């Protein structure tokens, strides 16, 4: 009987300690989100954002809070900010690599997120990346990325029809496509050798 009580006490104490540490981790996550959102506005290039010190392993606190999607969203937005599509690529070191990583991050977010509004935002940003990459003298590449952008904006509107930014950007992209000398027709947004409406395509798909 004594041994059983002793074992029970030890187990209960251990469980109590774990729960306490878990509570501390949860608190840290909440503080980190609040503080690092502000830090991101001031210094977006910091690489240590949204990374609190966790005591309990396997990100138990994070999983308990269910903030994986919020974290993914913030990191995706940061990758877009780092890519800086509005800046001349020759003025920025490693611009192509950063933009490529942003393309991949945004497309991954669109594939995996369950939040339609955020998916729409990400698709809109993906389209903006496409527009940024279309600023080239190479006509073929220009056409390719404009088509990519138009598909992404349409995907954004499919995910969230109230996304006014995506509507504006889509209109702009279609105007730019119309100006291009192409056999596919302005704004048809078909990939090379493909058929089918771009509005039906998954955001971020196609060449």
């Amino acid at each position, binding site marked *: 009987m004594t041994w059983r009580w002793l074992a029970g006490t030890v187990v209960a104490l251990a469980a109590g300690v774990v729960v306490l540490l878990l509570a501390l981790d949860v608190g840290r996550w909440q503080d980190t989100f609040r503080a690092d959102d502000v830090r991101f506005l001031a210094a977006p290039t910091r690489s240590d954002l949204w990374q609190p010190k966790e005591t309990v392993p396997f990100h138990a606190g994070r999983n308990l809070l269910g903030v994986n999607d919020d974290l993914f969203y913030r990191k995706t937005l940061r990758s877009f900010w780092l890519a800086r599509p509005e800046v001349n690529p020759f003025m920025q070191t490693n611009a*192509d*690599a950063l*933009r*490529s*990583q942003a*393309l*991949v991050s945004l*497309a*991954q977010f669109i*594939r995996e997120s369950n939040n339609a509004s955020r998916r729409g935002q990400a698709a809109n940003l993906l389209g903006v990346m496409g527009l940024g*990459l279309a600023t*080239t003298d190479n006509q073929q*590449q220009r056409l*390719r*990325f404009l088509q*990519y952008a138009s598909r992404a904006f349409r995907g954004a509107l499919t995910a969230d029809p109230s996304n006014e930014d995506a509507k504006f950007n889509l209109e702009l992209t279609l105007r730019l496509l119309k100006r291009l000398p192409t056999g596919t027709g302005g704004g048809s947004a078909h990939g*090379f*050798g493909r058929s089918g409406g771009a509005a039906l395509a*998954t955001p*971020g*798909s*196609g*060449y």
Partner: protein
Amino acid sequence: MATLAERARRRVRGPAIPLASTARLAGAARRTLIVRVALAVVLVGLLVLASTTGRGNAAATHGLLPGGGSGMLVLDVSRSIKPEADQTIVNVLERLIRSQTRIGLIAFSDIAYEMLPPGSPARELRPLVRLFAPPARPRPGLDPTTPTPWTSNFSGGTQISSGLVAAHDALVRAGNRHGPILLVSDLDTAPDDVPRVAQTLNTFRNLNVPFRIVALTPRADNLALFKNLAGKGAFDAPVTRVGHGVGAAEGALQGSVPWTLILIAGLALVALAANEHWCGRLPVPRTQP
């Protein structure tokens, strides 16, 4: 006279000590039965898991194409490929030939060319092996490498996206939209091609096109970039060793330790030991007559 069923039961259980008060042991017997059934379920589960993992490992070892089936090999023949990488290319070709799969071949540098249509027998790759096989005796002169048909006018820059797009287009034309793609390259693509590669890989993911990369002596920065773009999983087995610093990386075709299988085998051993510990027959010493 013992019935047939009784005799069969005896044969299975073996001789036992007749007890008058078996009712008192009913609880323990039930507990043992539950433990035994639970352990049996665990063991069967581990066996199935081990079999699946083993088969997966075997597929990864024998077939380089992700997901198996008919796919496309996208081979980088640009000037940037170092002679040290030739042996890896030969290994890849040999393994594909040995797997007796059906495959297409795209060779690319700054443009892509379809050398074999999708669905060609892998043995058709055989004539290519001699072009990459390192010479037994190095040729004297400035260029000791074996000249290839594309050395002089098909080995300009590197546009990996052109190879990937050509491979996928060939698969779509052949009616195999989700066919696997294997890229064999040093990953040293032109800087302005990187976004196109990212875009193409996004397309592959959206269309569920499995792809894998065999990196040929890649530079560390290129390897890191492609791991970000394609995911570490795309480099599963083939790339094993990477040096530090730019230009000091190495890729090779080597096997990897099957840790998952080892872990499953260890768990199966633990389950068997637990079975022996909790459910083994009681050793009853023989009494002397």
